[in-house]
């Protein structure tokens, strides 16, 4: 972090600390407390919405669980503040796990649907479980008394400020650690993440539980701030408000959630005061008109694009002057705002500002941490995490049957891979080569058959556990983490070398630093090995196609695999590049790795493969050395078509 950042953070904290002396009015202090509490929750919600890319419609309920845990503990058992708050975090995180574990098993809008239902149920339960929660009457709690001093509203402001700074610090550290990198990776390419031994499901649940714990913290702070809680606070509207705040503030930023919190705390005030609403909506309309004119004149947007937002903001501003009572239409305005933000401010206010800064001062924006380490030959290789026990065959697939509906993509295929060899897998298009690859790495579960790897049965295991056991792969259609730099891609592959815990990451313990430095050196060395050293800090999506393929190899090697699956590595490579690729594969073999190679370039296959298996229509038609296979009649027939005379 640069010193400018450090100074501005210290300054911001000082400004926040003196605010109550500028606005000593208890009403304002209370509003600032609520902003702080919401900002804490939103920082957590952003982990789910921004980083992992799932929608939670249950954060108001989680907030409520945190509130009620603290409230009930205080009310029924007189548990002190400093114990009730951590208890709230734990209880809420537990509920988060309860929701996330089943809901995240499937892709799609399931989490949103389940959390929405959860929100309703929690409200019902709080209302019904009168013996615990006092039902609709609510609970009254007093702020704590510390050393004989009753904490006042102004004192409480500093408690919340401290909690906010702490949350910011913790969230920032987590998101910048290997855990945060895993979140970003799984959002970018879930399949590649799984195949790097990082369980997508596991980390999604992890993110949601973290986020729930933070919501619990916010909830418990809310209880002591309000000194009275009742079930109706934690309703659907609050959930939507939270989501609006995260999107409007700007996802994947720390400032965004705070901006969002300010907006949603002020919003009800704006929407209850018609005069204020008129002023602000007119202001927004003027700004939109100005921006539209600017955009059209500088040709950044067409008149057509600008027409609708212009119309909406103008109608919004005009409606302010027609309405006499605004509270009746509050929700409609609120709904229109969400529509507007989703369509015209998808990256939020921070995203909008960033785009402007990027245009005029691009050097101010650092999207990625620059990694300066230069790799060397000494740190390319490392021993596999799981030593190879098998002698003879490293991998044995027996009678693999893979059926898609009526189609047998693989029909009773046997495959034996001898340890330390390069095994070619060839065949015409649609012969089942890539399907075999996906079966071996656990992406498809075979309909029947058995796969043994390193003397262990891996049939039906998840892709991430197969990867962790030592099978790494590249993809036929490149699956890189496009928004990450080349070296970050490799670091995701090195995820398994990070053994330190969440707490180590938060406190930057020596252990954490040691592992981090080792991983960087290793990643740089791997890039050096595939010849991408000079592109280490370039975003992967900006690399040319051939380089992307090489990057995938580096990333796969980072897993320390004992078996490497290469799916058409030479596709898109130029002739000199192919020569280098061959040298690279030979070097990989020299270091004791076993390689399965799918390739259409026959010269590559013939020059490096020890054994070649030929597939056609899902069946194995030949196997042997390259020369044997080349002269096999069935193979010639499969590639060139049958001879006329034979028919």
């Amino acid at each position: 972090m640069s010193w400018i950042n450090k100074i501005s953070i210290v300054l911001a904290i000082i400004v926040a600390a003196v605010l109550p002396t500028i606005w000593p009015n208890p009403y304002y202090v209370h509003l600032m407390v609520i902003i702080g509490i919401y900002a804490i929750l939103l920082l957590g919600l952003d982990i789910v919405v921004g980083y992992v890319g799932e929608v939670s419609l249950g954060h108001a309920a989680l907030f409520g669980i945190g509130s009620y845990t603290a409230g009930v503990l205080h009310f029924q058992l007189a548990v002190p503040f400093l114990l009730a708050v951590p208890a709230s975090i734990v209880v809420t995180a537990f509920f988060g796990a309860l929701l996330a574990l089943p809901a995240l098993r499937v892709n799609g809008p399931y989490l949103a649907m389940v959390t929405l239902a959860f929100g309703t149920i929690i409200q019902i339960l709080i209302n019904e479980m009168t013996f615990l929660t006092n039902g609709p009457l609510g609970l009254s709690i007093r702020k704590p008394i510390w050393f004989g001093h009753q904490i006042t509203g102004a004192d409480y402001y500093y408690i919340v400020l401290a909690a906010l700074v702490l949350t910011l610090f913790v969230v920032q550290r987590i998101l910048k650690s290997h855990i945060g990198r895993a979140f970003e990776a799984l959002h970018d390419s879930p399949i590649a993440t799984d195949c790097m031994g990082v369980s997508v499901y596991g980390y999604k649940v992890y993110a949601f539980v973290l986020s729930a714990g933070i919501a619990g913290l916010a909830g418990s702070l809310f209880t002591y701030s309000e000194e009275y809680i009742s079930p109706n606070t934690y309703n659907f509207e609050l959930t939507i408000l939270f989501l609006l705040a995260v999107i409007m503030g700007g996802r994947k930023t720390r400032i965004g959630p705070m901006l969002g919190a300010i907006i949603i705390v002020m919003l009800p005030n704006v929407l209850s005061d018609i005069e204020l609403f008129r002023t602000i909506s007119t202001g927004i309309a003027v700004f939109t008109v100005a921006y539209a004119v600017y955009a059209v004149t500088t040709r950044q947007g067409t008149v057509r694009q600008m027409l609708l937002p212009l119309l909406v903001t103008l109608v919004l501003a005009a409606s302010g002057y027609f309405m006499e009572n605004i509270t009746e239409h509050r929700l409609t305005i609120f709904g229109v705002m969400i529509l507007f933000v989703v369509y015209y401010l998808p990256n939020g206010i921070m995203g909008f500002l960033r785009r402007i800064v990027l245009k005029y001062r691009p050097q101010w924006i650092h999207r990625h941490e620059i990694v300066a380490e230069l790799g060397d030959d000494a740190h390319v290789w490392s021993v596999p995490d799981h030593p190879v026990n098998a002698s003879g065959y490293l991998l044995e697939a027996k009678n693999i049957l893979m059926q898609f509906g009526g189609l047998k993509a693989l029909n009773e295929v046997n495959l034996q891979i001898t340890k330390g060899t390069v095994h070619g897998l060839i065949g015409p298009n649609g012969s089942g080569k890539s399907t075999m690859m996906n079966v071996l790495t656990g992406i498809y579960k075979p309909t029947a058959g058995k796969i043994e790897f390193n003397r262990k049965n891996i049939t039906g295991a998840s892709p991430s556990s197969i990867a962790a056991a030592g099978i790494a792969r590249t993809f036929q259609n490149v699956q890189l983490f496009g928004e990450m730099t080349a070296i970050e891609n490799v670091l995701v592959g090195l995820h398994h070398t990070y053994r330190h815990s969440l707490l180590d990451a938060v406190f930057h313990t020596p252990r954490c630093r040691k592992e981090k430095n080792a991983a960087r050196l290793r990643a740089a060395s791997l890039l050096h090995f595939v010849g991408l050293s000079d592109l280490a800090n370039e975003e992967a999506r900006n690399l040319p196609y051939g380089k992307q393929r090489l990057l995938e190899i580096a990333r796969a090697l980072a897993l320390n695999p004992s078996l490497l699956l290469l799916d058409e590595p030479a596709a898109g490579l130029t002739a000199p590049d192919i020569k280098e690729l061959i040298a690279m594969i030979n070097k990989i073999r020299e270091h004791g790795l076993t390689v399965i190679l799918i390739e259409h370039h026959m010269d590559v296959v013939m020059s490096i493969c020890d054994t070649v298996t030929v597939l056609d229509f899902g069946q194995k038609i030949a196997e042997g050395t390259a020369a044997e296979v080349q002269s096999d009649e069935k193979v010639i027939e499969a590639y060139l078509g049958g001879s006329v005379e034979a028919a």
Partner: protein
Amino acid sequence: MEILAQLIVSGIALGMIYAVIAFGYQLTFATSSTLNFGQGEALMLGALVGLSLVGYMNYWLMIPLVLIFGAMQGVFVERVAVLPALKTKSEFGWIMTTISLAIIFKNVAENIWGRDDLTFPSPLPTSPLQFFGIRVLPMEILVVFGALAIMLAVEIFNRKSIYGKAVVATSNDRDAAGLMGINTGMVITFSYALSSMTAAFAGVLVAPLTLTGATMGVVLGLKAFAVAIIGGLNSGMGVIVGGLLLGIAETTTGYYISTGYKDVPGLFLLLLVLAIKPAGMFGKSVIKKV
């Protein structure tokens, strides 16, 4: 025993309503992998529009008009909330936009029809019929048959007509259907029209049995989520079984435990199904090709 039978019968009528709404979710999920988080509001609008129309005409004449209204409402939702979100490829844009339209519809309905619940005149006699000591309202029978009829009608349309084949083709593979000259955008719009139409129909079916008001759709829409997941988002059979299961679970819990807790078993069932068979009881798990 008689009480239990009575509860099951009431549960069936309720469950069929859930099934119709969940069926609406399936229709749009199949074509566009999106669903309308304001489906409950589509039902509510259908019921309220029906209530206003019933003042001028007979219940049976009103139904086709409500169906047309429902279809138009569905087209509106798709054009405003879904189509632009699909174009920008934002993953959850459509969730937020359909929710915001739902909020707007509810608020507008409150301003037009008021905040109080209204009674919907029943088109059938309100005195219950007796079958082996079980009392059944004629309206409940209508709900069950009406719900089955509309689902059957949509299914037959999808299977037999050429337009329906376009819907099925788009559900199977949107890109391939597009390449075969099917206007998949139209198909998605159409599926939204169908979906909201069935919801509006469910609204006028259920309205005489319950109270009608701006907030009536929220809970129904939510329960139907549970039904769609329990049954499977891609299984027609699933929503009926899921709906009946949830309806009966609710009426029995309401009687034997407490009416306050009647919504709870639904969520537990939902989490249980997701934990055991994430694709739903009757759903097929989809293999994602790499």
